[in-house]
């Protein structure tokens, strides 16, 4: 069927206007009035069926929508993909005039928002001249779990998936990037200026290529007078200076910089390119693997997984045991700290630490606004509380109503059981 939907604004208007004499006819014609809610009865009186009005909303509640979206042709207006997102334009760059190489960090195998901004910046550089568009090449180390490279604005994708590039192997990675420099010779190299990852790799690359990179880049403007046609503004001197200079070949862009918006209107090809033959690199840095860190020693603001205690904890012994068993960093509400059960440096919230944990388990915490402020940046929040109406439950992704001591104890048992099963499996294998 054709994707293009022809709309008749007059009919839509009539469909919305319940008082219009042709309302029912038009509804029937648009296929919406299958079970009309109003009809003239046998002796001329208007009959209504209130149950036929409206539709069932996403939460199972009946909704009456008078805005016209549900009626008429609004439901599938042209260009709508059904999920409210406008369709993206497909862009294919067959013979690019030049290449923009991007090395995203891909923390956890996925594009971060920093990576997406960077790809948006790369698109700005590539699409500056519509007569001679460039192509964005993303260079990915290891197997990426990301499937949205095309939506993020990648035209070509080079995947370097070799065992010696895995882990911390900066020297092998630089050798690989140098090989790409030789085979593809991109006009621009863009990397995220993150502490480990792009920031390090980019500086190594710049030192290897003999380029003076734009570190801490946060803004670019077109400038016909400079070598690559762009002017760059970078942060220098510990963030206290702005340096305005010509954009060099290698640029390291800051997170959340206003360089460019992430790509949102186009879809690109993300066509795989065969990686070049990698030179044998002699490595003087050996990765001996991650070291187990005591979660209690991790600073609260940095912790990835926090088990936080509030005024609803009675059994403090049990709480500490649970934190140890789960391997979680301990946090606390202000009341728990003020009452002397937890040290001050464990307080989460407006007057404590603003945490960034990926998983935050709040046990016996009511969710006062001062506390919720501190956990704004947490991804997943789990609440354990006896009061089903408290604010922490509204914030939580998973809430368990019940007594904290019993639930923590059951959780410890469950985790230990899983460990034993795991151990058993490993022994058997």
């Amino acid at each position, binding site marked *: 069927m054709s994707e293009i939907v022809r709309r008749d604004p007059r009919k839509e208007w009539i469909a919305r206007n319940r008082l219009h004499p042709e309302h029912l006819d038009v509804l029937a014609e648009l296929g919406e009035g299958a079970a009309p809610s109003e009809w003239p009865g046998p002796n001329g009186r208007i009959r209504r069926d209130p149950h036929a009005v409206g539709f069932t909303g996403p939460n199972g509640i009946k909704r009456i929508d008078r805005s016209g979206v549900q009626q008429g042709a609004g439901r599938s207006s042209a260009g709508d993909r059904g999920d409210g997102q406008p369709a993206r334009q497909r862009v294919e760059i067959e013979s690019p005039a030049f290449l923009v190489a991007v090395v995203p960090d891909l923390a956890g195998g996925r594009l971060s928002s920093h990576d997406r901004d960077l790809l948006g910046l790369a698109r700005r550089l590539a699409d500056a001249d519509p007569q001679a568009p460039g192509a964005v090449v993303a260079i990915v180390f290891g197997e990426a779990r990301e499937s949205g490279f095309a939506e993020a604005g990648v035209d070509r994708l080079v995947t370097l998936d070799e065992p010696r590039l895995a882990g911390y192997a900066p020297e092998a990675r630089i050798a690989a990037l140098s090989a790409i420099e030789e085979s593809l010779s991109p006009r621009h190299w863009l990397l995220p200026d993150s*502490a*480990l990852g792009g920031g390090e790799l980019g500086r190594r690359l710049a030192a290897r290529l003999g380029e003076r990179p734009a570190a801490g880049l946060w803004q670019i403007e077109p400038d016909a007078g400079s070598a690559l046609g762009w002017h760059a503004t970078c942060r220098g*001197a510990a963030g*206290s200076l702005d340096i305005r200079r010509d954009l060099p070949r290698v640029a390291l862009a800051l997170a959340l910089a206003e360089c460019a918006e992430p790509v949102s209107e186009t879809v690109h090809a993300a066509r795989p390119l065969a990686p070049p033959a990698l030179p044998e690199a002699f490595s003087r840095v050996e990765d001996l693997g991650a070291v187990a860190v005591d979660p209690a020693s991790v600073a609260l603001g940095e912790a990835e997984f926090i088990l936080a205690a509030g005024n609803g904890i009675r059994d403090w012994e049990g709480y500490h045991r649970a934190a140890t068993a789960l391997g979680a960093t301990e946090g606390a509400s202000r009341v728990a700290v003020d009452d002397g059960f937890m040290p001050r440096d464990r307080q989460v919230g407006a007057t404590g630490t603003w945490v960034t944990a990926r998983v935050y388990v709040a046990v016996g915490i009511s969710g006062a606004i001062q506390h919720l402020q501190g956990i704004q940046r947490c*991804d*997943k929040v789990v609440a354990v509380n006896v009061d089903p109406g408290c604010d922490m439950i509204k914030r939580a992704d998973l809430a*368990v*109503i019940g007594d904290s001591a019993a639930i923590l104890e*059951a959780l410890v048992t469950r*985790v230990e059981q899983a460990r034993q099963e795991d151990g058993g499996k490993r022994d058997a294998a």
Partner: protein
Amino acid sequence: MPHETTKNAAGALDVAVLVSIGRHPVTGRTRRADQDARAVEAALALDHARVQLIHAGHHETDSEAALRGYLGMGFEALTLIEQAGDADVLPALTDALREAPPRLLLCGTRAETGEGSGLLPYLLAESLGWPIVTGLAEIERVEPEHVTLLQALPRGQRRRLRLRLPAVITVDEAAPAPRQSAFGPARRGALAVSEQASRPDTALADWTLEPARPRPKRLKVVKAASARDRFKAAAAKAEGGGGQVLTDATPEQGAEAIFKLLHEEGVLRR
């Protein structure tokens, strides 16, 4: 405490620390740079090490006060490679390190003044042909040919690396905080000045430097097909519910649900 610097034991490890002039972020006064001071601290924590401090730059009263801050950490002397104010210190430093190569070179990750791009350690490592590692948390063991260290990763995690000597290691905020600088040793310490030809940094002269402007905040742009969607996005509450709530569950069922979520998120250790 008699310091390692005075111990002239044979077989001691030669460590050089590059120190620079810092700038207090609030008052703007010169001081010892925080990361460089941490690098000095890391060097002082090594057993059997001969630690040498090196600074290349323009010598004036202001910078002398900052350099004496490092001397106050327990040093008798600091090598000062005198350079013009607009010089690129890389060639002078490379020459000095080639003449008397240490086994281990420590430095901060980024300078607090000047361009502060954090490139110098990489350029030094590249021109000396040494390996380089960033983000030192702790040096664990030094062997004649290797050094084993912990590297700081995000979220308080650590990674163990083994590095062939001679090597460059850069230090950032993850390393232990530096000791205080004592006034007496800072006054008594000597600045051993050595003149080197200075090459001006021509690229830097072409750039415009200005005080940092606040970066514009990104506005939340809602791309929506219809006015209704835009209105809904604008009026949406930041924290919509939609979470799963388990009422009337036994503690075991609740624990199972929590365990499942923790397992899916991968935060449980094995």
